């Protein structure tokens, strides 16, 4: 099925691109809606035929994987859901992969969000990942969702010294002093690893500025592709690793599957599945750039 899909995709796209090339070289205008149709097809066809490619973790992704892997059992990992539904298709696979990995290694998981929408998406991760895949993990003992607080970087500035100044309860209204997972936890400095998943403001950059650097706490990030280039300068000294866009998520998923084939062999891999349409869409965009330049130089030569 996948091979037939690949052939159909290639025929559709290559045929269409040739038509575009001929049309633009003969000086006829190509409407922008044609470009949209091409991108739509380049994404839809591989999705329908489930075209996927193999992924291998790069050092920047492996850095996070190895960190979670090598932390002693019961280490405290905080994952911050700093995104909304508009970013979810891209970064949700990352947060789900982090949650899976942390719980599979029996670490304690602390979930929060600097975005109001992150609170609901964290609840969705608990419902769709933690409860069905880790039924023996107990809320308040193995994981906790303390939710969102308004204040952007101000929140980090407070919880770097004391969680309870801002967080009196978890999202369900349970007093933090009464939950086992919070015994002995005073501030962010008690965490062994911080992970921020997002791509806007406040996000990974604020975590570097207001938590990781002043508290000297290891920080990892999962970022939407748009913000990724701005975060690379922090790697490797201020960020132990970074998942850049859906490619980063796919690499992390493949590493999880490779390391734990029995446990995660059948887990959903939206990141890997998205890389098929991604690859074809990128090839189409590259072809557009080549066609655009060819027609430009051809028209220039013709004018001379």
């Amino acid at each position, binding site marked *: 099925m996948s091979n037939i899909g690949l052939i159909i995709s290639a025929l559709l796209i290559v045929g269409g691109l040739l038509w575009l090339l001929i049309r633009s070289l003969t000086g006829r205008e190509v409407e922008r809606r044609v470009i949209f149709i091409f991108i739509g097809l380049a994404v839809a066809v591989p999705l329908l035929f489930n075209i996927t490619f193999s992924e291998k973790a790069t050092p920047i992704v492996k850095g996070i994987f190895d960190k979670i892997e090598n932390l002693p059992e019961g280490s405290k990992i905080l994952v911050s859901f700093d995104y909304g539904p508009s970013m979810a*298709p891209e970064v949700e696979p990352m947060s789900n992969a982090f949650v899976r990995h942390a719980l599979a290694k029996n670490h304690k998981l602390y979930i929060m969000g600097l975005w109001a*929408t992150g609170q609901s998406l964290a609840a969705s991760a608990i419902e769709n990942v933690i409860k069905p895949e880790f039924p023996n993990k107990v809320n308040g003992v193995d994981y906790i969702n303390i939710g969102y607080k308004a204040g952007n970087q*101000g929140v980090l500035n407070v919880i770097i010294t004391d969680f309870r100044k801002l967080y009196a309860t978890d999202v369900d209204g349970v007093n933090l002093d009464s939950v086992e997972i919070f015994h002995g936890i005073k501030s962010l400095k008690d965490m062994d690893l911080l992970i921020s998943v997002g791509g806007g403001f406040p996000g990974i950059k604020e975590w570097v500025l207001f938590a990781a650097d002043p508290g000297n706490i290891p920080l990892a990030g999962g970022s939407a592709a748009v913000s990724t280039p701005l975060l690379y300068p922090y790697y490797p000294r201020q960020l132990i690793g970074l998942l850049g866009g859906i490619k980063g998520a796919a690499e992390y998923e493949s590493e999880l599957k490779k390391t734990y084939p029995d446990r995660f062999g059948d887990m959903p891999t939206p990141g890997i599945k998205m890389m098929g349409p991604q690859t074809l869409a990128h090839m189409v965009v590259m072809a557009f750039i080549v066609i655009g330049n060819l027609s430009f130089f051809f028209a220039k030569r013709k004018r001379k």
Partner: protein
Amino acid sequence: MANSRRISQIILAAVIILFAVSWIIKYFALQNEGVDTWFSIRDAFFITFAAFLTLAIMSFLYKDNPYYKFAEHLFVGVSAAYWMCVGFWSTFVGNFIPKVSHTLARFFEVPPKDIEITYFIPLILGIMLLLRLSSKIGWVSRWSLAFIVGTTAGLNLIRYLRTDFISQVSNTFIPLLVDWGGVGPFFSSFSLSASGQFVMSLANWMIFIGVFSGLIYFFFSKEHKGFFGGASKVGIWVLMITFGASFGYTVMGRVSLLVGRLTFLFQDWLGLIS
């Protein structure tokens, strides 16, 4: 004019019919999966409505239209209301109430804390901010705004100076020959792996040349001629490659969002993929 109105009415009728048909088909599909009748009606409606909103937003690619406007306005309204509600329950009820009134804390069923008088300061500043809605005493809100701007600027100044300036300068001081043990060991253990000595050294050289030439490009006190001009040209190339990488990442991000919506349409709505 009358013709275009008629076309609009036909399109509206088609949208309503398609919506109803989709709702009914989805209802039966969910029933077949063993979902309870009431939940099937509700879920079928929400999935159909979500599909309608997705298509309404995508219809902007053709041209601006009332369906796009409807979806856009709904999104803005729902987002604003959502942020306000979450802010109220998590911050106002969760943080403020327990520290200013035990009676209110019991009313909202949150654990009361020791009363802190200082919490009335942000309350007053918040009320002052809302006075912006008044045309007569709207100027009062500037005091709160000044407080917000001043605090944020003060906080950011220190943190940016340390993390984005001092630490970033320090990050640029990197060895140009990573783990150098001489020419012999370099060639005997030569590898093109990403974590190998050669690639790591090459990456550090790229950082060094990129930072150096980029800084020269933005140094305007000396004319860009000779070696300086050459380095400045390299700086332009570095900048262009950076913009290209940013564009590539942006394309990847946007395609991911499109994949996300198409996955919803094909999987949850149409049931074409599993």
